């Protein structure tokens, strides 16, 4: 933390990220209600503003909505983590160029550090919003403040005032008109504060603390004794004292992140592979502990601010199937990092993020040694295929197979992607088509 005293923090996130990704290559989806469905097309995981206006909520089962879809002009898309992951990595890399440091917080959110006067920081926020729109066609909101908790709040303000031309997607607590932030905090409930859940909110209310402003003005030591050191930090952060360290991830349920700053820079790809190996395993263990499986692995690495122009790298790879297998996850992380990092650049931090999460109970892991080759969902090992073929020839087509692949009945885990868009940016055979 020490080196960023007096600096500004921006929280940048992409509006309706999955839907915005779908719209990038399919302009017909503009201005109409769009939802993105979870793995297996089960329920809604992302909504366009038009879909929100229809009253559709995250988590709604698709089968309940489907009968009305046509009447509403509603378009559903299966989640396309190949696309979202690739665009996410591009967003993170681009944002990293502006920041004096960067902490990727989720597939569509990143904290970055900004220097200069509050006015300059606000201007930088506006520039990077324009840059993401120009480079990637994705709309972002930017919240700028002196602490992470306040930057989250500022982002919330930017996001919830989409038609306010003075804000225009970028809100700075430090540059707001006098009294504006205070009035807002007096109106918003404490549960709108980053890290304050329903349970803490109820308990706070019983203790007479209902609004964000009341939480900000609470006595930190008292909050610590009644709640936890975590909520005490929140109170301090609301008051402008930065105290949430990088490693303290408030990761939401939508992803698992393991990221750290190094005690000394990592320069060689061999050392970085070791880092990815360790972080990948830690992330996979967290994933397994949550009873979940991931479809996307994203890696990030960055230099310290004084280390020159090779600021940040990000890369995302989609796993062939949802998995919590540490071998598959680690292999993907190491491979992704190798493809983007530059040998010789002193990286000071790195992270592994797992996204596209779904519950683990629906299927069966591929057995070690039977998993598919990286990036390929064809080409099984030839020798193995020979053996499998001979067994099938002798005992019948469903006598043997990979994992559940050989069962007479199709496993329920075969992923449904009925409304899948192409893998526009990661597969040469599925490029977007443009008419001449």
């Amino acid at each position, binding site marked *: 933390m020490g080196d960023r005293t007096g600096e500004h923090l921006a929280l940048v996130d992409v509006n309706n990220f999955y839907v915005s990704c779908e719209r990038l290559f399919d302009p017909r989806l503009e201005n109409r209600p769009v939802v993105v469905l979870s793995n297996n097309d089960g329920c809604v995981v992302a909504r366009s503003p038009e879909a929100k206006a229809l009253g559709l909520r995250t988590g709604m089962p698709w089968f309940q909505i489907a009968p009305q879809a046509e009447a509403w002009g509603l378009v559903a898309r299966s989640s396309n983590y190949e696309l979202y992951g690739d665009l996410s990595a591009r967003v993170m890399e681009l944002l990293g160029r502006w920041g004096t440091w960067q902490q990727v917080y989720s597939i569509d959110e990143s904290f970055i550090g900004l220097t200069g006067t509050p006015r300059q920081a606000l201007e930088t926020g506006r520039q990077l919003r324009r840059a993401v729109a120009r480079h*990637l066609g994705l709309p972002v909101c930017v919240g700028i403040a002196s602490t992470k908790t306040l930057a989250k709040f500022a982002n919330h303000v930017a996001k919830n005032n989409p038609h306010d031309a003075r804000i225009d997607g970028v809100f700075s607590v430090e540059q707001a008109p006098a009294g504006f932030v205070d009035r807002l905090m007096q109106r918003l409930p404490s549960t709108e504060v980053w890290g304050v859940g329903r349970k803490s909110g109820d308990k706070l209310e019983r203790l007479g603390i209902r609004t964000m402003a009341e939480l900000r003005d609470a006595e930190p030591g008292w909050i610590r004794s009644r709640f936890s050191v975590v909520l005490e930090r929140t109170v301090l952060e609301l008051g402008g004292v930065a105290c949430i360290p990088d490693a303290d991830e408030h990761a939401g349920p939508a992803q698992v992140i393991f990221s750290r700053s190094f005690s000394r820079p990592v320069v060689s790809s061999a050392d970085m592979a070791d880092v990815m190996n360790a972080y990948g395993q830690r992330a996979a263990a967290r994933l397994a502990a949550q009873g979940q499986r991931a479809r996307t692995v994203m890696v990030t690495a960055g230099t310290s601010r004084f280390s020159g122009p090779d600021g940040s790298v990000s890369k995302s790879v989609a796993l062939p199937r949802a998995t919590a297998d540490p071998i598959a996850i680690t292999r993907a992380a190491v491979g992704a990092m190798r493809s983007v990092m530059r040998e010789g650049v002193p990286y000071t931090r790195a992270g592994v993020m797992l996204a596209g999460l779904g519950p683990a109970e629906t299927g069966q892991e591929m057995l070690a040694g039977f998993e598919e080759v990286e990036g390929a969902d064809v080409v099984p090992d030839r020798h193995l295929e020979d053996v499998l073929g001979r067994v099938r020839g002798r005992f019948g087509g469903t006598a043997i197979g990979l994992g559940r692949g050989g069962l007479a009945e199709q496993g329920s885990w075969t992923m449904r992607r009925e409304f899948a868009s192409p893998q526009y940016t990661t597969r040469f055979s599925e490029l977007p*088509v*443009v008419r001449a």
Partner: protein
Amino acid sequence: MTAQPPEPSGANPATDAGQSARAHGFPSPARDYLDGGIDLNRELVRDRTSTFLMRVTGQALAASGIHEGDEIVVDRAGTPRHGSVVVVVLEGELLVRRLALQTRDGVRHAALETDDGAAPREVGDLQVWGVATYCLHRL
């Protein structure tokens, strides 16, 4: 040290901008480690965050060397100029066209042209998706 990277100029592409975070600044210490192979990503991609590949259908720009089945490299951050080959969004569709910019009576007019003899199409609300920088044509 400035925190802001420059907006890409679109002209005079720095050959390694696709890999390095900024088109300016110090020479990369990584340069000493590069091996000798030609990396087409490095040569054809000015900035990997803004560059996309698209596949062409239709022959309306055949005389410009863009044929059915070709792949074009599209830089979203490129600056569209008079004569640029651009990808535009028109009526919910992605189209590749040549851009004609004219100023008449102090007002800038944009028109989309093809090579097939069709009249240029003036568009009021021009939505440029990106600027095509290369065309990959299989021989």
